[in-house]
């Protein structure tokens, strides 16, 4: 709306200026203004002959005007009313434009002297100079449309706040009305006995201790886990967090695109300059790092050592490539080519050069070693000891042959706790990498760095899981990790510039090798305290990790570290299945028992009956036996089996769909008795039946199963799939378990048949108000201060398990 106003203001002024040209001509006509008016009236007089009254008034006016006074009194303008005479309003100059001079003419002499007029004049002149045409103001329809849109957006925003509530209601299994009923169950001890206070000195002492350690004095109303959950799920914080993440993502994408663009630049000079700058910065930073963060410096050194190894492995810079060969041919004649080759070789030498510590430093370190650990003196002295120390921490990547045979015990101790240490040192690490990577550390980089750190933390947690996992699980995880996007800032940077930077990096490495010596001693000194610090920090971590988990992100992190309980369960399940295998052979045997071929020919086992041939047979019994013999004889002739097979064949025939013969005798040929229907005609009008569905008893020779459809059952069956289901199997499975009390215990029945909506008789059900919905979401954040700080990281995770699961599933 503000915009519109501005437009209109802009518009008004120039319109006046443009019209000011015509001002002079108009002034002349000003004199004959009144006579004209008269004429108009008279003209109208002629036209309106019908209205008598009007005529009369006009006549009176005309007469009065004829009188002495020349000037006619202008009709007075009164307040706006419904009945405004169309003659009272003067329409003179309606089509003409307003001229600036008209406005100025009213300015008095006094104001002219003030200077304010001159000012406006100047402004007007300025305005006159501007000739740019301006846009038309928006049409009525368009403004209305915009207004409508804005209104709609506002309204939809208002309405969409209810969306989650509505979805929740729709999904809820049971709705209980009225809302916010107080539970009628007995309250817990802690809630009831609030007036209890410490009285005895012992109690007081105990509670003093508890208070000092910030422990909950009563049984906490909310567990730390729940608190964490509630905290994590606070709406505002979640929104904030989300916005933050969005920003980070956006920045990341910007950065990525920037990096992409820069990488695409083909200018060699540009890259050279950049790399040089980078190298310089790196060197500078490294030197700083040696002082401030020796551990990190060690890592860098390690990296360089690796570079050296790689260089030794490869044929790069050995003048054996295609390029080198071509240069070798040229070298005879071309000095430049020779120099290039020389440069390559020099580079190779530099890179493969093993740094030797300077003599006095060497001696010093040796001396220290002697003091600390005599075994170390036997080892390869060419490599600085500090490097070897670090190699204990970093198992992978380093050459195992170059490792020291005896690893320092402190390092060994530190090893299992390495993860904790690394996580602790990560912020600084990221900061350092940021400094090394970019010339000036921008905010976005810092943000991205943070992002990367979180990712890394999560990754380490996953690795932990992997250790605990069984093999199959492990594979899965690793594949996931590989598949997942690794956008951590440092990694991305190294990868993108790797190719170009290769040489320069290596050059830098060779320079840095010289620093080894200087570092060696310092590192040695720092190593021991560092280890102790690590342990100390561990302890502090254990005890002091009672900070609140506030954000979603953090909560997620927590859960993820905790999710490694799952594999254990899985392994248990696997064990159970192992037990289940015992049943497998049994099943197999049963399958063997049912043999198709042995239907009637199956050999019968005779059973040894203990009471054979009763000593005294009753006459009746005898008669019975005789009777059976007679019956047997009677049936001896009947071939029961053959009869059965015949019947079966008959049934099969009957159930087969038959061909339909549609030939009409006498059509297209002579008809009558004894006239056979022509073959081609019969062929044409014979409708072949579709192939019959295989019978259920086709593999059971001694069984006839009726193929007739039982429609009485079908009337009770579901014939159309109900809504959310996509295939019958889903639906069938969903109704597979019965609900009735015949099959279920009472508790289960009550739950299974719980009504969708429960209302309290006689209670008024108010419509859902905003307070009910919105306040309930805010409360977790505002909840009165619980008497303990949030628990450990792990505890938070336990509460958040389900979400973590979902996350994983999505991956």
């Amino acid at each position, binding site marked *: 709306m503000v915009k519109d106003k501005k437009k209109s203001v802009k518009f008004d002024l120039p319109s006046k200026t443009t019209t000011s040209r015509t001002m002079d001509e108009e002034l002349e006509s000003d004199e004959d203004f009144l006579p004209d008016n008269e004429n108009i009236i008279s003209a109208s007089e002629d036209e309106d002959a019908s209205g008598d009254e009007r005529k009369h008034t006009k006549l009176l006016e005309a007469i009065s005007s004829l009188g002495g006074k020349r000037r006619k009194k202008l009709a007075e303008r009164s307040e706006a009313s419904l009945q405004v005479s169309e003659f009272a309003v003067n329409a003179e100059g309606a089509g003409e434009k307003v001229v600036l001079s008209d406005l100025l003419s009213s300015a008095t002499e006094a104001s002219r002297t003030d200077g304010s007029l001159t000012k406006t004049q100047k402004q007007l002149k300025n305005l006159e100079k501007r000739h740019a045409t301006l846009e038309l103001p928006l049409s009525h329809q368009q403004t209305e449309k915009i207004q409508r849109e804005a209104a709609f957006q506002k309204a939809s925003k208002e309405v969409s706040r209810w969306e989650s509530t509505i979805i929740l209601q729709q999904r809820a299994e049971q709705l209980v009305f009225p809302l916010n009923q107080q539970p009628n169950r007995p309250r817990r*001890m802690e809630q009831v006995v609030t007036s209890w206070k410490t009285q005895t000195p012992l109690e007081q002492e105990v509670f003093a201790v508890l208070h000092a350690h910030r422990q909950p004095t009563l049984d906490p109303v909310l567990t730390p886990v729940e608190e964490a959950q509630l905290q994590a799920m606070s709406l505002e914080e979640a929104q904030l967090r989300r916005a933050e993440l969005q920003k980070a993502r956006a920045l990341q994408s910007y950065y990525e695109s920037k990096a992409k663009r820069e990488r695409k630049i083909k200018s060699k000079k540009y890259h050279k300059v950049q790399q040089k700058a980078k190298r310089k910065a790196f060197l500078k930073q490294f030197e700083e790092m040696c002082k401030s963060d020796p551990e990190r410096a060690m890592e860098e050194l390690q990296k360089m050592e690796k570079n050296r190894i790689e260089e030794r492995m490869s044929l790069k810079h050995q003048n054996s490539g295609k390029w080198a060969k071509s240069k070798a041919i040229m070298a005879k004649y071309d000095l430049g080519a020779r120099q290039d080759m020389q440069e390559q070789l020099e580079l190779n030498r530099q890179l493969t050069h093993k740094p030797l510590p300077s003599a006095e430093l060497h001696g010093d370190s040796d001396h220290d070693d002697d003091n600390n650990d005599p075994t170390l003196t036997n080892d390869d002295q060419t490599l600085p000891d500090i490097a070897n120390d670090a190699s204990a921490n970093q198992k992978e990547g380093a050459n195992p042959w170059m490792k020291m045979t005896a690893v320092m015990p402190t390092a060994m101790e530190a090893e299992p706790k390495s993860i904790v240490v690394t996580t602790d040192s990560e912020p600084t690490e990221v900061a350092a990498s940021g400094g090394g990577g970019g010339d000036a550390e921008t905010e976005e980089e810092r943000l991205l760095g943070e992002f990367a750190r979180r990712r890394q933390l999560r990754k380490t947690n996953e690795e932990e899981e992997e250790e605990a996992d069984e093999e199959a699980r492990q594979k899965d995880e690793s594949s996931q990790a590989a598949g997942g996007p690794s956008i951590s800032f440092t990694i991305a940077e190294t990868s993108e510039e790797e190719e170009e930077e290769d040489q320069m990096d290596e050059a830098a490495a060779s320079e840095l090798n010289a620093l080894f010596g200087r570092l060696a001693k310092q590192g040695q000194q720092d190593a021991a305290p560092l280890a102790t610090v690590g342990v100390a920090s561990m302890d502090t971590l254990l005890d002091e990790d009672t900070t609140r988990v506030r954000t979603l992100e953090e909560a997620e992190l927590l859960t993820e570290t905790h999710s490694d309980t799952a594999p*254990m369960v899985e392994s248990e399940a696997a064990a159970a299945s192992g037990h289940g295998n015992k049943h497998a052979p049994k099943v197999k045997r049963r399958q063997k028992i049912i043999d198709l071929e042995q239907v009637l020919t199956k050999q019968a086992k005779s059973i040894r009956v203990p009471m054979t041939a009763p000593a005294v047979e009753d006459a009746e019994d005898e008669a019975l036996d005789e009777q059976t013999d007679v019956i047997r004889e009677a049936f001896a002739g009947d071939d029961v089996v053959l009869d059965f097979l015949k019947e079966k064949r008959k049934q099969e025939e009957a159930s087969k769909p038959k061909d339909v013969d549609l030939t009409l005798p006498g059509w297209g040929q002579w008809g009558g008795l004894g006239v056979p229907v022509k073959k081609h005609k019969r062929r044409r009008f014979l409708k072949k039946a579709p192939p019959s569905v295989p019978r259920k008893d086709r593999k059971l020779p001694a069984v006839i199963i009726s193929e007739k459809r039982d429609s009485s059952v079908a009337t009770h069956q579901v*014939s159309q799939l109900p809504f959310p289901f996509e295939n019958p199997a889903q639906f069938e499975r969903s109704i597979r378990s019965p609900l009735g009390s015949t099959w279920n215990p009472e508790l289960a029945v009550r739950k299974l048949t719980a009504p969708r909506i429960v209302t309290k008789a006689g209670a008024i059900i108010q419509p859902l108000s905003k307070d009910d919905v919105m306040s309930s979401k805010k*409360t977790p954040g505002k909840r009165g201060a619980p008497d303990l700080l949030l628990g*450990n990281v792990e505890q938070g995770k336990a509460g958040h398990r389900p979400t973590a699961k979902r996350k994983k599933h999505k991956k």
Partner: protein
Amino acid sequence: MAATMEAASTKSHVGKKGKPPKRYWDNPTEDSENSHVNKKNRQDGESDSNQGNITAVSPNKELVTEKQNKNRQSKTNHISGSKDPFPGEAPIPQERLKKFQRGEKSQVTSGLRSKLKEAIKRSEAESELAQKQAARFDLLLPEDAGFLEGDEDEDTCTISQDDIADAVDITSGAKYFNLHLSQFGPYRLDYSKAGRHLILGGKRGHVTCIEWQSKQLVSEINVMETVNDVKWLHNEDMFAVAQKKWLHIYDSKGVELHCIRKFNDVLSMEFLPYHFLLATASATGFLQYLDVSVGKEVVCINAKLGRLGVMTQNPQNAIIHMGHPNGIVSLWSPNQKEPLVKMLCHQGGVRSVAVDKTGTYMVTSGLDKKLKVYDIRAFKPLQSYFLPAGAACLSLSQRGLLAAATGDIVQVYRDVLGTPVTKPYMAHRVRGGITGLSYCPHEDVLGVGHSDGFTSMIVPGAGEPNFDAMDVNPVGSLKQRREWEVKALLEKIQPELICLDPSQLGRVDHASWEQRHEERVKILGYDPLAQEKFKPRMRKKGRSSSGAVEKRKKKVAHEDQREVIRKTVEENLGKQKELKKEKATLAAQGQRSALDRFKK
């Protein structure tokens, strides 16, 4: 749940990660002790989470979950500082869970609609809850059946009933008794569903009703007619007697309630308790169903298989099995006029059929002196035995003990269904040819009706020791029995629902619309969608002469058919035109005139 999870998870990480902050209620020594317990319970913790999912959700979900969590918390943490050594719910063994598993679980895959996912999840959770609850309450069925065990080198079948009766307690020993009723010839018998009452029907008209455990005679009558079969109806108040001519129904006092003349020459009967149907098989070859709740004949089927004397029911699906003289066993439902299945089981006539409680096995015996065991889900033979004397009567107990009557000897077989046996578990000789054999439900008792009366013998391990008092209550009071009757009537299953595979009701009907319409027409007796026939209006002044009416009819005749024909003709014409056009264009392309080359 949260609490249990917490406890479980913290322990597993002690080695690698930081410990949780110390709480004053934590007992440091417990850690090592509880670790294995926690491991065990972890599964439960998870399952509990599922259980939590399906609890009622009020609109503001957070509040509810909060409440739940609070409750759980209160369970685990006590002010005293002591800790529950077995947090969470008691674990349920996998085998027991498996016992109550119903069908396959459906998996929630990624590509599903959210609503469908929700529905599947919900139903899964529900069925899991039901399964778990059932498994949990399985604990309440503590009775276990034991079997007779002989000394070394002693066959259990040589142990006489007297020995058993002496060995067991007095009340159990009293369950072995003989009734010498030699006057009225071979007896048929039937136990009531609860197993308290016994009815005996002598061939020569003697019908008696006994409360056999207390040996009280409830009533005794002589119907002065041949009695072919006797059967209890849904409770102990009424029983049906198949007499020489008609079917009669008496009450427990022996008062004749009904004489049903539609049911004549009945030879054997079966009562389907959940359907309130009395199925009868007659000498004239008819299978009839009587609905005893309303007293109407449901269906009368001519089996066309000769005299029907051998009959039994499948307790699982209420299908009637009948044995025939030509060695065939046929399966019947009241909804089809032809047998659902016909199986050729024996070379000679079928003498007796029995089906086990689960509806898995059928045992038949025939004149060829063979005893055969079938799997009636697949209709395949499992075992075949040769009995030298042949078995006249068969009966399967609730726990799968087979009783076979060979002459005057009752043999009881154990595990006859799955594994081949060589000798009986028990044997007992009675004083006459056996004509009736029936196990008493929920008791280790086998009733034998023979020509010299009745023998009740003890068969350890025969009856199901755990009874469902909601279904049948052997110790129910009068009031409870009355209430049960009302409930049973309310839950009566209609005869239309009887089918070979009861799970078919839980499946989607794949039949086409036409098929269903056809069936509907058959049921209704008319086609509800059929068009009305044209009836010419009555006109006056001689214009409604028969000739005029016919003319008018002819005008309208085949109106709809004409429409169809018109349409098809139009379509055909259109097609022909198109063909012509195509041909013309083809021709135009193919036959180019000499001047076409100058065209551009």
